[in-house]
């Protein structure tokens, strides 16, 4: 328990360190002030410097850093230029959207990934295995934006089954409860599928390999020699052991689903963390960029921690030290 606490404190410091690096990186690197300066011939230097004062960018870097520290300690994580509210609020709003597509994608990729991995391990070397293996690799090799756009082209534009953007219909407020649930469901299908394909492929391959690994171990061979039924060996003895390393993947993939995907959120217009990230970079909203860095690296580190803990729970041989 103490160990876990120590790790958590450690991870907070680590992500804070990362954010500090990014903070200084953004200040040291030469960069244009704001994207506000759209080629507007009426905009003068005078207005620019006023803007800088309004955003507190006229002060020395060190003072800015101290201000930022103060913001962090008050839990605001800084103040976003473009949204005009504390960074933590921006993240809080965005994370809901990211989770709405992230959790189904997580379930989808682990569910299907493990299922397919197990099946192809059972049918190892047969045509089914080869086809599954290859088709997943192919899906994995397609750039995600292209996959998304093709799904939209097929399922929204041509067939008209699934809506292609946002998470709710325009007339959502006038719907009854069941319609609302169904409306959300239809909106989630395409982005979640797009998001889940790549990890699904990786999980399927990983499951298959660990499965084969386990199947080749002596205790399975012993079980076979005892004359146990093939099915029983497979599901009772091999599967639970093979799933241990697969479950640790959960922690490692956590950021993939919960830290938002810039590409998927951009294509399906979901105002989640990924979109927020992209906006903060494109519009040079320093506090937001740094805040998101802090948040995302924290999720990554927590994910790693979870995977370690899970591993220790499922595999008593490994003790946390």
């Amino acid at each position, binding site marked *: 328990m103490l160990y876990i606490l120590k790790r958590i404190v450690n991870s907070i410091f*680590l*992500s804070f*360190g*990362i954010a500090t690096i*990014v903070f200084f*990186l*953004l200040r040291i*690197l*030469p*960069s244009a002030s704001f994207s506000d300066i759209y080629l507007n011939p009426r905009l003068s230097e005078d207005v620019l410097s006023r803007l800088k004062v309004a955003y507190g960018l006229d002060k020395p870097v060190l003072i800015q850093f101290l201000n930022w520290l103060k913001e962090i300690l008050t839990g605001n994580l800084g103040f976003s230029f473009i949204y005009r509210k504390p960074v933590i609020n921006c993240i809080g709003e965005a994370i809901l959207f990211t989770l709405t597509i992230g959790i189904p994608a997580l379930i989808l990729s682990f569910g299907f990934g493990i299922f397919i991995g197990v099946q192809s391990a059972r049918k*190892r070397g047969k045509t089914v295995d080869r086809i599954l293996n290859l088709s997943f*690799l*192919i899906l*994995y*090799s*397609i*750039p*995600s*934006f*292209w996959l998304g*756009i093709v799904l939209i*082209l097929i399922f929204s534009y041509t067939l008209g089954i699934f809506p292609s953007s946002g998470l709710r219909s325009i007339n959502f407020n006038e719907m009854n409860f069941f319609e609302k649930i169904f409306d959300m469901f239809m909106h989630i299908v395409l982005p979640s599928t797009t998001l889940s394909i790549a990890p699904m492929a990786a999980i399927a*391959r990983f499951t298959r*390999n660990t499965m*084969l690994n386990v199947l080749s171990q002596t205790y399975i061979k012993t079980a076979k020699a005892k004359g146990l039924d093939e099915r029983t060996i497979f599901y009772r003895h091999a599967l639970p052991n093979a799933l241990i390393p697969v479950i640790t993947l959960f922690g490692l993939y956590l*950021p993939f689903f919960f*830290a938002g995907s*810039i*590409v998927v959120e*951009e294509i399906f217009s979901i105002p989640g963390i990924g979109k927020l*990230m*992209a906006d903060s*970079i*494109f519009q*040079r909203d320093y506090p937001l*960029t740094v805040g*998101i*860095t802090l948040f*995302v*690296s924290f999720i*990554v*580190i927590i994910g*790693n921690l979870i995977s370690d803990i899970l591993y220790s729970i499922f595999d008593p041989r490994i003790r946390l030290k």
Partner: protein
Amino acid sequence: MKKQRQIIFVASFIIAYILISDFILPFDPFISPDKENLSSLPPFSIAYELNLKNGEKIVVLDYKFEDAFILYQQKFKAGRIEKEKIEKIKTFIFLLGTDNLGRDVLSRTIYGGKISLIIGVISALISFIIGTAIGAFAGYFGGIVDKILMRLTDVFLAFPKLFLILVVIAFTHTQTILSLILILSLLNWMGIARLIRAEFLKVKGMEFITVLESMGLPDLTIAVKHILPNAILPALISIPLITGDVILTESILSFLGFGIQPPIPTWGNMISEAEKNLLSTWWLPILPGILISGTVLMMNLISQPET
């Protein structure tokens, strides 16, 4: 080993491709013979170039003979010209059509492949070198050096990669091939470093190293001459994997406006550009799309462990 033969085969194929691709281009990938008339032609289009005796060239989409004249058809106008003025007629075949600027898509795909592969391979090699160096240092010296270097690796691993690339490109104001290669390599070495370190620890524990150390050989000699060759082999396999990954990442960067910029084609920016012209010139992404996925697939297959 079968795997090694595969890798060598693929590597030599890539090198051969990079070397000969310039010589098998049917058209100039940068300059169209005629932007106006050849703009956005679908696949299997044919056009003709009438070379006049006075050196002029007219690009036409169709022509026919009539008495002493040649009647020709261009995109916006038709015309005719006396037969005897013409020296010869060249036929252009655009197997994969042309883009908005009238450039042959096939040639651009071939040329773009060269750039994509160069970026992928060089970046993977640099990552490999960085990863090996860091992994070797950490593994050989252990102790505090190991701790610091591994913590550094953790920090890099903890960063969301795409996000970091965007931040670095956005705030350094450079967007050239070289800077892109460097940034991508700086973000891909962590896996290799861990692998090499683990191998180092394994090899270091072996008997022959202890023997060498007792013979009083300097650290560097032992590390480079005796441990490295043993440790490096298992890590080699990640080079194709990184190559594929870099090629994919470049296409996503192009999609976000941060990749290699035109007029230099890469498979990545060709398909991301095609995404923007999806409804007008649907033929643009077909071959680059197949090739990019095929390459990544191949890279994944050869780095898959034998089962």
